[in-house]
């Protein structure tokens, strides 16, 4: 299996910068997800790694071998396309055999290798159909088989589940994850669905506006977002972010709410801020409602999510935040709630640079 390394890789389409210079190292056997809103350059980056798109500047290394200007066929990678890209005039079997035939494998070897992936993906019953007769999920299975059968050094997948029905996506997600655990192949997986990213990845590369925003484990991007974009983008709803003032160890929220900062944060805040302005952030589950809580707000709306209730709470100064509360509790609209914050889960951002303070 292979490592993938990008060094200052950039892509411009004419004047337009689709991917700003980016550095990234992906370890052998790692499952890395590119996550970001549509149009942020995920596909373009993946296509540059595969060689389907040339880089404007920078270098790409596979297993420490510079492949920047090699053709896709010389890079030993497989690509699973968003819309499957199966050969429509061939049966599923012929589609899977295609890469082996292109390499001139013997017929026996082809039969053996096809049987291997067919057993792995359990698609024996699909082999004699053409793509036009297959459902979306089956098409994707065949496309996966075509990628797997070659035993490439790395897999690149561009929103492979994007074209599937929601309920189907979940089972395919598990299937791909299981395949990865079986094969331990280096995989780069593109999606705009953060649940997919959280569920599958070893590391997430959060992208926005043609730029890498943060690289980290799912827990890191969730609990320690590097900047305001990641804080808002990850989680649904995203992190509560309240523009406040800071001084003498106390965060003054709009209105009369005050939050005493834990002692170990004071130094960092002193260094990280260039004025009194600060943005305080916390996840909905970081707030605990209790009668003697130091912070207060008014219930604005309440949504039952099944396992829990998501309260929309209006603080003084018209700030609306989300608080995750027990399913059993009922909070009438307009009633006052008091809550405390788990000090471990409170984060601060510099409003000018939008970067996290730590």
């Amino acid at each position, binding site marked *: 299996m292979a490592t993938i390394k990008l060094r200052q890789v950039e892509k411009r389409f004419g004047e337009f910068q689709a991917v700003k210079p980016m550095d990234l190292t992906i370890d052998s056997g790692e499952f890395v997800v590119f996550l970001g809103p549509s149009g942020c350059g995920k596909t373009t980056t993946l296509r540059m790694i595969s060689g389907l798109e040339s880089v404007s500047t920078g270098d790409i290394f596979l297993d420490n071998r510079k492949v920047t200007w090699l053709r896709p066929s010389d890079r030993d990678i497989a*690509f699973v396309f968003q819309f499957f*890209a199966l050969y*429509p005039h061939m049966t599923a079997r012929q589609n899977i055999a295609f890469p082996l035939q292109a390499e001139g494998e013997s017929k026996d070897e082809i039969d053996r290798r096809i049987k291997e992936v067919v057993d792995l993906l359990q698609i024996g019953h699909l082999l004699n159909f053409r793509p036009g007769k297959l459902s979306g999920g089956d098409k994707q299975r065949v496309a996966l088989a075509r990628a797997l059968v070659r035993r490439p050094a790395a897999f690149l997948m561009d929103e492979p589940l994007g074209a599937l029905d929601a309920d189907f996506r979940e089972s395919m997600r598990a299937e791909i994850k299981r395949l990865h655990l079986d094969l331990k192949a280096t995989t780069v997986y593109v999606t705009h669905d953060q649940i997919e990213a959280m569920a599958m990845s070893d590391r997430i590369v959060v992208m926005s506006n043609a730029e890498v925003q943060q690289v980290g484990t799912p827990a890191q991007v969730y609990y320690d977002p590097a900047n305001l974009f990641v804080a808002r983008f990850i989680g649904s709803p995203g992190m509560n972010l309240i523009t406040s003032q800071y001084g003498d160890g106390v965060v003054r929220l709009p209105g009369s709410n005050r939050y005493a900062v834990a002692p170990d944060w004071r130094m960092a805040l002193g260094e990280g801020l260039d004025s009194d302005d600060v943005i305080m952030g916390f996840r909905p589950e970081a707030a605990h409602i209790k009668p003697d809580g130091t912070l207060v707000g008014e219930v604005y709306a309440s949504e039952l999510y099944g396992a829990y209730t998501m309260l929309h709470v209006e603080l003084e100064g018209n700030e609306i935040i989300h608080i995750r509360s027990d399913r059993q509790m009922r909070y009438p609209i307009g009633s006052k709630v008091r809550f405390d914050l788990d000090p471990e889960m409170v984060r601060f951002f510099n409003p000018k640079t939008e970067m996290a303070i730590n």
Partner: protein
Amino acid sequence: MSTVIKSQTDVAKVRSAQPNPRRDLSDKAIRNIFIFPTLVLLIAINVFPLVYSLYLSFTNYSAIANKQPVWVGFENFGRVLSDERMWEIFSTTGQYVLFSVALQLILGFALAMLVRDKFFGSGLVTTLILVPMMLSPVVVGLFWKLMYNPTFGYVNYLLGFSNPSLAPDWLASRWAGDPTPGLALWAVIIVDVWMWTPFVMLLILSGLKAIPDYLYEAAAIDRASAWFQFWRITLPQVTPLMMIAILFRTIEAFNKSFDLVMGMTGGGPGTQTEVVAVTLYKQAFQGQWQTGRASALAYMVLIIIIAISNLYIRNLNRMKEGA
């Protein structure tokens, strides 16, 4: 309003029930008025001659003899089938169709591959390639006749023959004065290819352009060589359009070869370039004006064409079912 409007048709009914000063005619009447003249013309020009000639093919009718047609049963068909000259003519026609369609296909495909990718001036080149197709076959025949002329023609000049007595006389099937059978037929085939390759190119080009890029991207990822991609993706993907090109060209080569051959050789020398369309013309309008017999021959050609078309179309459908 007391009526309950349930559907579009109800709306239409309600509307047409109301008096409309601008429209005294119903939609149906207008439709019929538009269709009627076309229908009459079609029947007069297409359907009636078709049926009437079928009847004539069973009679001894001659268009210049002032006699009523007499029913002779299958005599005309028997005569056509037993006429030895007929087999020679059908063989000439077969060669003509086979070689000209095959060459058009190969050259058309090659040209389509060349102009498939955009390059500087590719639009202009494509348009220029299409010019021959837009000319009248008779005009094409006449000016190629000039180009083939052994004394002052351009063809021999380009081939490097300076002495007319040593050069080929294409349309007379002679090479340096010696009879060279087949030369005239090839001369006509070359012109047909020159004229209709652009058409085949155009069809194949549209097929090529319809192949989605992602198939080639997938193939590049699958490490297929350019050659492998051509055989396994390009060719199968344009085959349906190629079949349509073959179908069109085959039918046309049977019938429309007439214009070109008449313009260039009139079927000569001897009967070397006499394709069945020319025979038909000769039987029907020259010499004895054997209208009945020509009709029988025409119907046999029709049956052959329908049979061939059927084969093609069945093949085409089989391919489409898979896709």
